[in-house]
């Protein structure tokens, strides 16, 4: 089994001279739930489209299941093993729910009838209803059903919970985790909902302006990143240079707030060396890590 189900190296892509991807390095471990985060226009959808063979990269390499996505024949084989939820959630307006299921099924030899029936019931999708008559949330659910039932080894989900109400979002997330656990399916999903990502992802990657800012295990990242709050007396002159690992420093009165990405003990030691200071450390949320990286860029 390959270590990384998705692997890109120095991937570049421009649209009419405007760079969308600037040397993207991405590695998605096999069996992981990988949350792909970024602002609007950061390059998430361009990356996903490149992986699906819908766009051709200008440079660099992209491999899925170890196969280059630029090879047209291999790209078909790759798509046979992928479940995909598109960002726009658009499906054929002239089909009903049961017609699109009937249409999609034969393309995928590993189609799971049991999952199809399960999600038809769970998502309460009316089989006879035309797709344009479904709400956006229902269309999202239908797309998830079509992606999951493919029996795919990899699910690529572009904003999968877009349009879902909180209860439905929770149902969907729970099911995604269950599938990843029971079937060993790798999930690569983009989302703006950081709380969702934090809830289910075990790996994350933050992309900004077409470059990977940070990627890795969410647990490791949370363990590495700390928010340090330093209260200091007026007489103290703060250092102009901090030891490596300080990502961001914000001062409000006599309180200094430091976001540290690593080397936390050395930073605490440096802070404590200042006379009369008190230092406290706090765990950080994914939102803080995300905002820190996209703002600093």
């Amino acid at each position: 089994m390959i270590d990384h189900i998705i692997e890109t190296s120095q991937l570049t892509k421009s649209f009419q001279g405007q760079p969308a991807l600037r040397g993207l390095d991405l590695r998605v471990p096999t069996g992981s739930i990988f949350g792909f985060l970024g602002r609007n226009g950061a390059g998430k959808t361009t990356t996903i489209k490149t992986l699906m063979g819908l766009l051709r990269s200008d440079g660099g390499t992209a491999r899925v299941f170890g196969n280059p996505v630029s090879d047209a024949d291999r790209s078909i084989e790759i798509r046979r093993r992928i479940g995909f939820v598109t960002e726009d959630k658009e499906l054929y307006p002239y089909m009903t729910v049961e017609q699109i299921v009937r249409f999609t099924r034969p393309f995928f030899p590993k189609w799971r009838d049991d999952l199809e029936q399960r999600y038809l019931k769970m998502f309460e999708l009316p089989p006879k209803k035309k797709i344009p008559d479904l709400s956006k949330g229902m269309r999202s659910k239908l797309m998830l059903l079509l992606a999951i039932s493919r029996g795919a080894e990899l699910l690529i989900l572009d904003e999968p919970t877009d349009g879902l109400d909180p209860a439905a979002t929770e149902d969907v997330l729970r099911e995604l985790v269950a599938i990843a656990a029971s079937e060993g399916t790798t999930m690569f999903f983009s989302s703006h909902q950081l709380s969702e990502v934090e809830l289910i992802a075990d790996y994350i990657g933050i992309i900004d302006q077409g470059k990977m800012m940070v990627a890795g295990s969410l647990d490791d990242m949370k363990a590495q990143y700390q928010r340090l709050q330093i209260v200091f007396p007026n007489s103290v002159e703060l250092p102009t240079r901090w030891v490596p690992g300080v990502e961001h420093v914000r001062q409000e009165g006599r309180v200094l707030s430091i976001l540290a990405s690593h080397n936390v003990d050395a930073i605490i030691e440096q802070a404590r060396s200042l006379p009369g200071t008190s230092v406290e450390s706090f765990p950080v949320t994914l939102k803080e890590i995300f905002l820190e990286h996209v703002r600093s860029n």
Partner: protein
Amino acid sequence: MLWYKVWLETRFRLLFTLGVMGLLLVLTYSTRAAAPAPGARIPVFGIVLFSIPTFVVVICTMLAGAGIATQPSFQATKGLHGSMLFTLSLPVSRLRLLAVRAGFGWLEMAGAIGTLCCGMWLASSQLRGAVTVVEMFEYAETLIACASALYFLSVMMATFLDDQWRVWGTMIGSAALWWLSTHTPLPDSLNIFRAMGEGSPLVAHTMPWLAMTFSLALAAILFLVAFQVVQHREY
């Protein structure tokens, strides 16, 4: 199963086409003029030779498609999106998407033309008296071959135009082809519009093989262009 998608996509267009065809048949059936002078053309020929080529352009416009951008015209304002990403996520080549869509639509077009010719022959006693069933069959063959160029022009346009623009594009393209065929020193034997009218087996009593071959060659070239567009286009 791509054929199933194409069928669901085109069935109402086919129905509309058959509706227009029904009107033409009623018109043909109700044309009962006095017997023409010896050697003069029977009146129903006027309808046949004008309405059928016009109708052929309508059929091509209605039934053509490239299989990727498939939203109906009332959704075309959304741009080239619709269900395109879902279609392209299926494990099939772009050539297959194009070929199945274009091929199925072409079969529907051929069926519609065949039905129209049969219907006209059965509906008009004048026509039955003037041409044999074999000549009518040859006329249908001629129409199908000559319509292929116009059909694949529409297919080619569907690879890069929204549906509503494709419809306009096909009509303008067909008109441009007609203008070129009458205003350039192209031999009459290659004129596909003439082959569907004055040069058809109904009037000339001979098959316009050159025009038919020219049209099929043009259709093949247009299909290749469509394939190149689909293959190299980014979605």
